[in-house]
């Protein structure tokens, strides 16, 4: 019993770590620039595939993660400059546009990599189970993912809360024009933030592809989870993304274990209840 609980807890954490990497980028772009980027799921997918390609060519997993991230940074830069700016902040247009981008990216990926599920090969140093006290077997890879998730969370939190950059970025959300009128090159700053978010999305595609596999439609599956994370935690809040991914990760793993029959309700039921009690999410601010 305790054995299973420990295992499910770790499972929840590892899914949470992946979701956090993806959702923190989404929350940054929405929270900061008020851009609803539905293409985030497609970024995950294409980052994963490109990273996979690099891993296959070079044999280096780390290189693949970086390449997956950077390629999405490039894609996002082009998309943002040529397309998203043209929506002038209208969320309806952003939704239409970024879903359009998702279609294009996902279908292109399908043409290039085909529809068979693919897995990013895990590096040798992360393969196989580690044995924990109490004879619990747990995959080393997922262990490392949890550690990475924690590290990135700490880093982002510090960046957001402790450095002036965080304050400026939040100011930019409140009133972009005024921030600029105080001498901040907000366009550049947002470009950097977008790049960071895009990098996280692309890199998490590679990281996720190594245990959840990459396949057509993964972009929607993962996007929905990321959205749930962000909404539960509260949009635009890094703390929220952390709490939200823990919530989703743990609910998913314990729910599947304890109440597999109700899987359809497991994730969305608690989310609906939570939102009705606290419409702005756990860490969101009521306006």
């Amino acid at each position, binding site marked *: 019993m305790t054995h299973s609980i420990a295992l499910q807890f770790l499972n929840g954490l590892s899914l949470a770590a992946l979701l956090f990497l993806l959702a923190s980028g989404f929350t940054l772009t929405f929270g900061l620039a008020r851009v609803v980027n539905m293409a985030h799921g497609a970024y995950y997918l294409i980052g994963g595939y490109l990273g996979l390609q690099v891993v296959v060519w070079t044999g280096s997993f780390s290189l693949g993660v970086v390449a997956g991230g950077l390629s999405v940074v490039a894609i996002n830069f082009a998309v943002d400059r040529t397309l998203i700016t043209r929506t002038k902040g209208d969320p309806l247009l952003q939704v239409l546009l970024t879903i359009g981008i998702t279609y294009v990216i996902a279908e292109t990926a399908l043409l290039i990599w085909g529809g068979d599920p693919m897995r990013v090969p895990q590096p040798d140093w992360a393969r196989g189970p580690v044995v924990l006290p109490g004879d619990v077997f747990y995959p080393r890879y997922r262990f490392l993912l949890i550690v990475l998730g924690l590290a990135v969370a700490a880093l982002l939190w510090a960046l957001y809360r402790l450095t002036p950059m965080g304050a400026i970025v939040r100011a930019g959300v409140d009133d972009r024009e005024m921030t*600029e009128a105080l*001498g901040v090159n907000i366009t550049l700053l947002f470009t950097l933030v977008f790049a960071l978010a895009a990098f996280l999305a692309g890199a998490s595609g590679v990281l996720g592809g190594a245990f959840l596999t990459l396949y057509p439609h993964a972009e929607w599956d993962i996007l929905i989870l990321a959205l749930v994370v962000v909404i539960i935690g509260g949009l635009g809040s890094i703390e929220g993304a952390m709490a939200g991914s823990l919530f989703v990760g743990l609910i998913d793993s314990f729910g599947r274990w304890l109440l597999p029959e109700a899987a359809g309700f497991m994730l969305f039921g608690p989310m609906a209840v939570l939102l009705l009690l606290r419409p702005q999410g756990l860490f969101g*601010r009521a306006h």
Partner: protein
Amino acid sequence: MAPRDPILVVDDIHTYYGDSYVLQGISLAVQPEQVFAVLGRNGMGKTTLIRSILSLTPPARGTVRYQGRDLTGMPAYRIARLPIGLVPQGRRVFGSLTVRENLTLPQSALSGVTRKPRWTLERVYELFPGLSERARQMAGSLSGGEQSMLSISRALMRDPDLLVMDEPTEGLAPVIVREIEAIIKRLRAEGLPVLLVEQNYRLAMALADEVAILAGGKTVWTGTPAALQADDSARARWLGV
């Protein structure tokens, strides 16, 4: 005092919001160490003038020169770094930042400060003690007047060489208005030029070295406060006082 080059020159600017033609040829010049007041009834284009100068709504035609430099086509953040401080209409404090964060923001590295600022937190708190009591409160929950004080302080923290104020005393209690009056006088004495839009006629008269009146997007009257005081018909016609 020997005539010097004006610090800010606005030369025949025309500004549109989409299709609506708001500024229809405005010219003015602000001299160094001068308080230049812009008056006019509601909707005459005062705020638009300020937005045009700071490139927030760039004029379609005409030029703005600051210290001899043409500001045409310069992005707003570069103009702010000249440095020019802005107190916008409606205060526009950053509601989800604390008071303190609002104040330190203009001096953070990303805002492009290049010299040691003359204004510090201490100096600003000294000016508005009410703010120092609320340093860790979210600016969005400040009272209207407190927000005004914060907005003025934030502009000062930008350490400006020119201060642009759009109705800074709106919603301030008379005591504070008097304080602001004193502050602007002091700043002017320290050599800081101020471009001031103000609905408080008494205050504008007390502070201004020169006055321009806008109506229908045009400059309809310019001169000294004394001349305006004497021109009853202009006052009645353009300002309703």
